[in-house]
């Protein structure tokens, strides 16, 4: 039997040229859903031993150590990001380190599709489908937020700013819908520049 073939939700999808932003699917990322009590020092220490980072405890923040990142999801839940190839090893290490601690780590690498949005219009395009105050300083680089986006549940990670790089995580089965949504709402001809320099209105 040959090597298992990877077919992600958006395999073969390419963004058309008429968009105000760049979008593409990230396919090489592994994800682990980690549950545990942030108030339990043993848990936090064991997680740090494996991941090399302090799990973020401040809501909606993230932390990184090398190629491993941890996104805060809830007071007792994190999404651990790593190269896809390292998922199995990291998961095994976590499970071993946490064996005696009430916790749970599970591989969810295939559960979500990551759509990366890049460009100065990334936030304004996203704002056509979500009600968060993405233009406020609350959404600086590193911020993580679960949200309702165009009728679906999603997770937003502000990767970097100026120019914006935003990762939008949607459940795999919704990936096509999300993609189609960006094709419709991301068109350059419909771009909006909220605030900033505006055309002077007629008088």
């Amino acid at each position: 039997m040959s090597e298992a073939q990877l077919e992600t939700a958006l395999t073969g999808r390419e963004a058309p040229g008429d968009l105000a932003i760049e979008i593409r699917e990230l396919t090489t990322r592994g994800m682990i859903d980690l549950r545990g009590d942030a108030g339990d020092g043993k848990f936090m220490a064991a997680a740090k031993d494996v991941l090399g980072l302090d799990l973020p405890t401040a809501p909606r923040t993230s932390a990184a150590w090398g190629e491993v990142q941890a996104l805060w999801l809830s007071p007792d839940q994190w999404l651990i990001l790593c190269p896809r190839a390292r998922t199995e090893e990291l998961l095994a290490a976590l499970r071993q380190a946490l064996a005696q601690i009430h916790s749970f780590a599970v591989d969810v690498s295939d559960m979500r599709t990551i759509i990366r949005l890049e460009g100065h219009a990334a936030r304004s395009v996203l704002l056509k489908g979500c009600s968060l105050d993405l233009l406020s300083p609350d959404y600086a680089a590193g911020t993580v937020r679960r949200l309702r986006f165009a009728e679906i549940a999603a997770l937003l990670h502000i990767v970097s700013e100026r120019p914006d790089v935003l990762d939008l995580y949607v459940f795999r089965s919704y990936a096509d819908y999300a993609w189609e949504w960006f094709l419709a709402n991301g068109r350059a001809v419909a771009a909006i520049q909220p605030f900033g320099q505006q055309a002077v209105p007629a008088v």
Partner: protein
Amino acid sequence: MLIVHCPVCGAEGDETDFHYGGEAHIRRPATQDPTTVSDAAQRDYLFMRRNPKGLHFERWRCDRGCGKWFHAVRDTVTMDFKATYGITELPPRELMEAASGEWAAFFKDKLDAAKPSRKGKSS
């Protein structure tokens, strides 16, 4: 569209980012021993609802945030949220005192129980 504030993670957002969970502080009588629960008690648990015009004590879930349940106090006429508090907690004392009708009756013994005794105060 209401703005709801989650006391667990601090997220604030549209009501559609949250899930409304109905009346707060409903005790499930069967959790202890279903055989001791009367028909009327079971009916009250399942169906009877406080339906105040004014302060209401209710449950919400931070559906698109941290996923945690919490309690809120909301005025059903003005829609103002007066407070949010933990899912296993009682409301702030002043709001228990401000409650009316059936809620006032419900909180009465809680307020009595929480009343600091003189002795407790001086010691």
